[in-house]
């Protein structure tokens, strides 16, 4: 216990790193994922194809491999990114594929007549998507999107393997230093993740109720 308390500063810094990774990667994943979902339902075939290839590649590649590519692969083509930025890119681009699929399922759940009515009024494809289809799609997509984002928060732990001092990296570091305090260190790590994921889950639940659509 004492050892754990002695290293509370380390925990704080690691926690802030995990939180930062989660927030930045989350924003990247949501924005990129929404664009990809829009591309996948676009009337323009090359855009559809591009988004499909993206989703299939990232969904079927282990996150660790994506990390390797960003941290060690990109420098081979003279693109060096700092570790933290690299981790945000890796987690964000990877999660975007799952976000895209969740949003696409939401788009498919919107009655086709909604888009038809919008097109009949003279709205363009992108106007139809942004003003009529996506706002309704997001409502049904909150629960699966929540799961994707919470999984992402935990996936940031892979950054530990790439020299980033985030929460999971403390496990190896501190338990090696004092194996006797392992239990408290484990508890501390679990607690750190829950400080991020539990409020996120509560917030998502609130959002789900607020946007619940009257049908």
């Amino acid at each position, binding site marked *: 216990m004492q050892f754990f308390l002695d290293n509370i500063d380390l925990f704080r810094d690691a926690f802030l790193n995990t939180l930062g990774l989660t927030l930045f990667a989350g924003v990247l994943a949501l924005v990129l994922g929404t664009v990809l979902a829009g591309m996948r339902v676009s*009337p323009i075939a090359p855009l559809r194809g591009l988004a499909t290839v993206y989703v299939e590649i990232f969904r079927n590649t282990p996150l660790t491999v994506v990390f390797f590519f960003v941290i060690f692969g990109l420098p081979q083509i003279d693109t060096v990114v700092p570790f933290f930025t690299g981790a945000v890119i890796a987690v964000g681009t990877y999660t975007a594929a799952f976000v895209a699929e969740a949003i696409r399922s939401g788009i498919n759940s919107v*009655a086709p*007549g*909604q888009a*038809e*009515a*919008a*097109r*009949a*009024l*003279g*709205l*363009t494809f992108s*106007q139809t998507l942004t*003003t*009529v289809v996506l*706002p*309704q799609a997001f*409502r049904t997509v909150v629960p699966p999107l929540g799961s994707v984002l919470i999984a992402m928060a935990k996936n940031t732990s892979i950054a530990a393997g790439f020299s980033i001092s985030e929460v999971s990296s403390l496990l190896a570091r501190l338990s090696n230093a004092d194996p006797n305090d392992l239990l408290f260190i484990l508890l501390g790590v679990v607690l750190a993740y829950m400080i991020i994921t539990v409020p996120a889950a509560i917030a998502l639940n609130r959002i789900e109720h607020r946007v619940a*659509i*009257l*049908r």
Partner: protein
Amino acid sequence: MTSAPTGEPLVRLTGVNKWFGDLHVLQDVDLTIDRGEVVVVIGPSGSGKSTLCRTINRLESIERGEITIDGTPLPAEGKELAALRSDVGMVFQSFNLFAHKTILENVMLGPVKVRGKSKAEAEKRARELLDRVGVGHQADKVPAQLSGGQQQRVAIARALAMDPKVMLFDEPTSALDPEMINEVLEVMVGLAKDGMTMVVVTHEMGFARRAANRVVFMDGGRIVESSDPETFFTSPTSDRAKDFLSKILNH
């Protein structure tokens, strides 16, 4: 009776053909609709009448033939098609009001997003139109809080807000409870009297008699008969039209 059509063609379909897979749903359809004319399209289910209606604003594409509106051929896609659609009002069987927007927002959306009108201007016009179709006091509700008849009248107001050159009605009363059909038909008769060019796919023979300048009878993807309502209902020439009328009018 309705105001007389002008004899000036507004919508012209020439040799229109469409297939759904192997099914030839529209076969060499020629139809000209004059400015101010009210054309009612009737026929048995599967005759292609709804599909015909939906080709006029290209919600359905066609494989062969040409459709022009006010002399302009229908563009295949993109901004040009969107611009043309904005001049063609459409009312659907299932209303299709935007479920996440209020009644007022439903009517304002097109003028603001497509016509670039200011919100204040669009709202003023939307409220006038909602009053005209008798649902002005429901403006702040969402569609699910309205009855089917009210929703369909909002849908008509939404289409009118774009000041369309022509209005398409795809079975506008087929999804309504019987007691709500008349409130929608009254609005449509009013539009016809005001000289709106209308293409109406319907089973409402009473509306056809009251408001139509012309009845077009379709069967098997073809236009079988096209005449004024009186002639069509009293002395149809084709056997198929006689057969159809005997089935729907004899009870």
